[in-house]
C-alpha cells in the first residue's frame, strides 16, 4: 500500500487538535473555548454522561461541523483549509448513524470506504482492491465478504463497518460509540481489535460508555461534562472516585482491575450514592 506523504509534524504538537473552539449546531452551542489534543498513536477514549458533547467533539475533529470560533488543526493547518477528500484520506469516522443499503454485500460495503481515492472513471484500482482486502483481513471479516450485511449478527456487522473505515486508509480513526448494542463478548472482541489497530500505528479515538472498558483499553482518557473537558491523561492517573462523582454524579469505589491492574469502577449503588 502506498503511504501518502504527510507533512512533517511540528515537534510537540499533535497531528489532530482543537484550539479554543466553539462548536455546536445552528445557534445551540455545545462546547465553548474547547481545547483538546489527541496524542499521536494513542488509543484515546472519550467518556462522559449523555449529551455532554462527546459526539459533537468527534464531529468537530472530523470536520462534520465547523467551529464558529477557534480552529481544528490537522497536520499543522486549519482543517477547513483542506479539500474534503483530503481530510477523508487522513481522518476516518465511524458515526453511530451509518446505514447499510438493502442488499449490499460485505465486500461491497467495505469497498465504499475507498471513495476518497476514487474518481469517475477510477473506481477500482489495484490499490483499492488491496486496501479492501487488508481492511477485511484486519477486521476479520474476509470469510464474510460475499454475505449480505442484512444477514449478519450485530457484532459481525460492526466489524464490517470498522473494515469500511479501515479501507479508507487513514492514520487517525474516530469511532462514535462503536460497542453500543453489542453483547459483552463482541464488545471485548471489538475493543481488542482497536487495540491491535492501535498497535499497528493507527491513532484511535473512541467514544465509549463503559468506564471500565475505557480505563482498560484506552491509553489516554478524556473525561467530558457539559461540553468541557474535566480531566485528561492516562487512565491510571486520572480515574478516581472523585472524578467519577464529579463527571457522572455517581459515588463509587475505584479499585485495580484484577486482571490487568487498570482502574476499575464499582458503583456504590442506590441509597448510598446518586446525588
Amino acid at each position: 500500500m502506498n503511504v501518502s506523504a504527510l507533512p512533517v509534524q511540528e515537534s510537540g504538537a499533535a497531528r489532530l487538535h482543537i484550539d479554543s473552539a466553539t462548536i455546536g449546531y445552528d445557534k445551540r452551542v455545545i462546547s465553548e473555548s474547547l481545547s483538546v489534543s489527541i496524542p499521536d498513536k494513542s488509543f484515546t477514549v472519550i467518556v462522559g454522561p449523555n449529551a455532554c458533547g462527546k459526539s459533537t467533539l468527534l464531529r468537530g475533529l472530523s470536520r462534520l461541523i465547523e467551529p464558529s470560533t477557534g480552529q481544528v488543526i490537522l497536520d499543522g493547518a486549519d482543517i477547513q483549509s483542506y479539500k474534503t477528500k483530503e481530510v477523508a484520506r487522513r481522518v476516518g469516522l465511524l458515526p453511530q448513524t451509518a446505514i447499510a443499503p438493502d442488499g449490499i454485500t460485505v465486500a461491497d460495503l467495505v469497498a465504499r470506504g475507498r471513495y476518497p481515492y476514487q474518481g469517475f472513471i477510477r473506481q477500482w484500482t489495484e490499490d483499492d482492491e488491496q486496501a479492501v482486502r487488508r481492511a477485511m483481513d484486519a477486521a476479520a471479516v474476509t470469510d464474510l465478504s460475499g454475505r449480505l450485511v442484512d444477514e449478519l449478527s450485530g457484532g459481525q456487522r460492526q466489524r464490517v463497518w470498522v473494515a469500511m473505515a479501515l479501507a479508507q486508509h487513514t492514520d487517525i480513526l474516530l469511532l462514535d460509540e462503536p460497542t453500543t448494542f453489542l453483547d459483552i463478548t463482541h464488545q471485548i472482541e471489538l475493543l481488542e481489535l482497536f487495540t491491535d489497530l492501535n498497535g499497528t500505528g493507527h491513532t484511535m479515538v473512541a467514544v465509549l460508555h463503559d468506564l471500565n472498558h475505557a480505563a482498560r483499553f484506552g491509553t489516554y482518557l478524556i473525561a467530558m461534562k457539559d461540553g468541557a473537558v474535566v480531566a485528561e491523561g492516562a487512565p491510571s492517573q486520572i480515574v478516581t472516585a472523585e472524578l467519577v462523582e464529579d463527571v457522572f454524579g455517581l459515588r463509587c469505589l475505584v479499585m485495580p482491575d484484577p486482571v490487568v491492574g487498570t482502574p476499575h469502577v464499582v458503583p456504590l449503588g442506590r441509597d448510598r450514592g446518586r446525588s
Partner: protein
Amino acid sequence: MSTVNFGRRVLVLRRGRIAVRLDWRPVVVCAVLALAVVGLAVLALMTGSYQLGPGQVVSALTGGETGLVHDIVVEWRLPRVVAALVFGAALGVSGAVFQSMLRNPLADPGVIGFSQGSYTGALLVILVVNGAYWQLVGGALAGGMATALTVYVLAYRRGVQGFRLIVVGIGVSATLGSLNTWLILEAEREQAMAAAAWGAGSLNGVSWNQVVIGGICIVVLLLSTAVLSRSMRQMELGDDTAASQGVRVSPARLGLVVVGVALTATVTAASGPIAFISLVAPQIARRLARTAGITLVPAALVGALLCLAADYIAQHIAPTPLPVGIITVILGGGYLGRLLFTEARRRL
C-alpha cells in the same frame, strides 16, 4: 493474490486511467432491457391504422423509404415513441434519485407532490400567458421547485426525516390537486379543455419540437445525475458517513433535488403528469438487477420500457385510445396502495 469475493460475479476493467468494477448481473439485465426497449419501439412504429412490417420500419429509419411510409414512421409515429422512451427514462431516474436520497421506496416526485407542483406551474403558464413549450418547462420547473421547497420547510423539524417528508408531501400534493382543479374551473372554456386533456398525461399531441427541446434538457440532466451519482451512492450510507468519506453532502443533495425536480418538470411540461413510472421503475430495476441500493441505469431503462408499454396499451390495446397517464395510474395505483400499507405497518 486472491481477488475479493463480492458474493456475486464482478467484471473488472483496468486500462490506463480507467479502473472500473461492475457487477455482471446488472450489466446483463441492462442489455436485456435495452433489447426489449428496441423491440417494443419497433413494434410501436409498426402498429397503427396503417400496419407496417419490421423491415419497412427499419428501412424508413435508415432513410430507405420515401413518401407515405417515411411520413408515417418518421413524422407521425417516431416522435411519440422517442418521447415515451426519453420521458420514461427521465421519470425512472427522477424517482431513483428521490428514493435513494430519502431512503424510502415511497419517495417519488409524483407521490410527494413535486409533479403536481410542476403541473400547477405549467397550468399557470397556459392560463395566464398561453405560453410556448419552453415557457411551460420554465413554469413546470418553477412550480416543482417551489413545491419541493414548501414540502421541505413544512417537514423540517431539526432535520428532515424521510417518512415525515413523504406524508407532508402527500398532503401538499392533495392541496395542489384541488388548486389545479380550481384553476381549470376558473379558466376560459377552450383553455380549460386543453389544460384538462393535457393534465391526464398524454403523449397524443407531442411534436418533434417538444421531443427535441425536452430531449436535450433531459440528456443534460441525466448527465448531471451521472456526475452526482457517486455522491448519491455514498449518501445511502448516511449523511455523516458520506461526509466523513469526503462527500460534500449539502451541495450534492441540493444538486440531486434540482436534477430530480427538473427531470419530472421537463416531462410534465410536455405531456402532463405521467404518474407512477418514477415510483415503480427504480424498485423493479433494483429487484431485477439485485443491486445494493438504488441504481440509475437500470431504473432509466425500466422507466423507458414501462412508459413505452403503457403508451402502446393506451393507444392500441385499450378499447378506445386513452392518455398514457390513465394506464400508468391504473397499473401503479395498486402498487402504491400496497407500498403505503406495508410502510405504514412498519412505521406505526
